[in-house]
């Protein structure tokens, strides 16, 4: 917390947010929202929440902006709010919004102060994690061990939610060649882009480094900020870069649709499977300490550490596959022919 930077970044964020909601052009709104996410990541970092900042940098600033642009690319840039012309509708909306906002602002007064050492979270829960995490699990990064071990159920269902979101997008958008061809209401006319040598070559040389960096983020989630989600998103982003700089065929040639969906399944199954292995060995679901019986050269503490690495790998596989499939389906309207 450095209050001068805090103030400046916060005012930047508010300005960006106002600009995002006031601009009429959806493409501009997506771009400004990207800037908003950049700043949000900066704010998290500045408050010391490094893992959250990493997630915001990879998911918010990176992939979601690309997905927004892909969605605008296939639909339309115009805002359509011509339906609401009656002023009383707007008035009721304004009244509801301000009253809810007022209640929320009034509730802020009851919150404990920022980093208050006497708040309940800091007196009961946090000291336990701070003192016991390293001896329990041999993982220095407390956030990783809380996410993947102490509340492993929660993370498992988060992964399942992401998987379900991917499935939903596939189910809504995917159209096979023989099926009924629905044209979107506003027909989008695309012209052929030309092949850009510079972008292609630089992207080609950059993709392996990006993928290795993603795997590093995944593997070193125990020691530094990062983990399965962030690593998976960066890995997926590297595949998206292939699709953007070349074309959709290049991506689908490396990662076909069948494999993509299969990998999404495999990721969730790896997570749940490790839980079931624990169950079969006679411990609770997702209680990794029992895994020392089947892993070579580990005691109970290291078994928890390795178990976390296993489930993080599952998360990364699922997330990267889902991110790629989201991009492919949104950018090609489910036809898998052409993308951005």
């Amino acid at each position: 917390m450095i209050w001068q930077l805090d103030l400046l970044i916060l005012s930047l964020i508010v300005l960006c947010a106002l600009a995002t909601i006031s601009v009429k052009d959806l493409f501009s709104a997506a771009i400004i929202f990207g800037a908003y996410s950049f700043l949000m990541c900066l704010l998290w970092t500045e408050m010391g929440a490094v893992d959250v900042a990493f997630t915001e940098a990879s998911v918010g600033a990176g992939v979601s902006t690309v997905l927004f642009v892909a969605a605008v690319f296939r639909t339309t840039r115009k805002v359509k709010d011509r339906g609401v012309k009656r002023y009383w509708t707007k008035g009721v909306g304004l009244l509801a919004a301000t009253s809810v906002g007022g209640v929320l602002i009034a509730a802020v007064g009851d919150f404990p102060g920022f980093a208050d050492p006497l708040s309940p979270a800091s007196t009961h829960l946090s000291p336990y994690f701070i003192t016991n995490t390293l001896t329990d699990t041999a993982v220095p990064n407390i956030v990783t061990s809380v996410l993947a071990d102490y509340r492993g159920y929660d993370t498992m269902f988060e992964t399942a939610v992401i998987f379900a979101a991917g499935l939903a997008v596939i189910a809504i958008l995917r159209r096979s060649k023989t099926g009924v061809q629905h044209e979107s209401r506003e027909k989008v006319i695309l012209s052929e882009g030309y092949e850009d040598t510079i972008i292609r070559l630089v992207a080609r040389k950059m993709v392996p480094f990006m993928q290795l960096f993603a795997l590093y983020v995944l593997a070193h989630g125990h020691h530094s900020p990062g983990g399965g989600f962030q690593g998976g998103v960066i890995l997926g982003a590297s595949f998206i870069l292939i699709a953007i700089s070349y074309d959709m065929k290049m991506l689908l040639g490396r990662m076909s649709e069948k494999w993509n969906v299969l990998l999404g399944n495999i990721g969730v199954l790896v997570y749940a499977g490790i839980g079931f292995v624990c169950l079969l060995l006679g411990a609770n679901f997702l209680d990794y300490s029992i895994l020392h019986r089947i892993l070579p050269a580990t005691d109970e503490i290291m078994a928890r550490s390795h178990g976390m690495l296993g489930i993080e790998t599952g998360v990364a596989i699922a997330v990267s596959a889902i991110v790629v499939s989201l991009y492919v389906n949104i950018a090609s309207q489910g036809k898998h022919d052409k993308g951005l």
Partner: protein
Amino acid sequence: MHYIYTFLIMLVFWVTLSGKFDLFHLTLGVISSALVSWMSADLFMLDPKKKGRVATACRFLAYFPWLIKEIFLSTLHVAILALHPRMREEIDPTIVTFKTILKKDIARVALANSITLTPGTITVRIVEDVFYVHAISRKAAAGLPGEMEQRLARVFEGS
């Protein structure tokens, strides 16, 4: 062969990133590098049979200091223009085209990015061997392609 090259480069990059030298993390590094070289070695090096990569890389490194100097000059140029009180009289933007003598894609891309980084010019696009360059003044446009192309020809297409 290109798999092995990619694997080695990735392993060096991993060690730089990781900074942990115990057996467990090195094993993870080897696995990750092998995975990446399996996934994208064909992207990283399109032509597995090509010779003389190392020599080209060394010559390219020797090209760097000159490029840094050019970038410094270019930043100075932009700074002077930006802070100039009568800036609109100083600049005179045009888009110029020229043909390059460079044959290889990588050489062309290096030339394009060098043009972007050096004073007063930005590469707009490359179509076959024609460069479209936006120059901020006639003087900057007159100096194209100039010394840079010669140097890059020596780097990438010399023996």
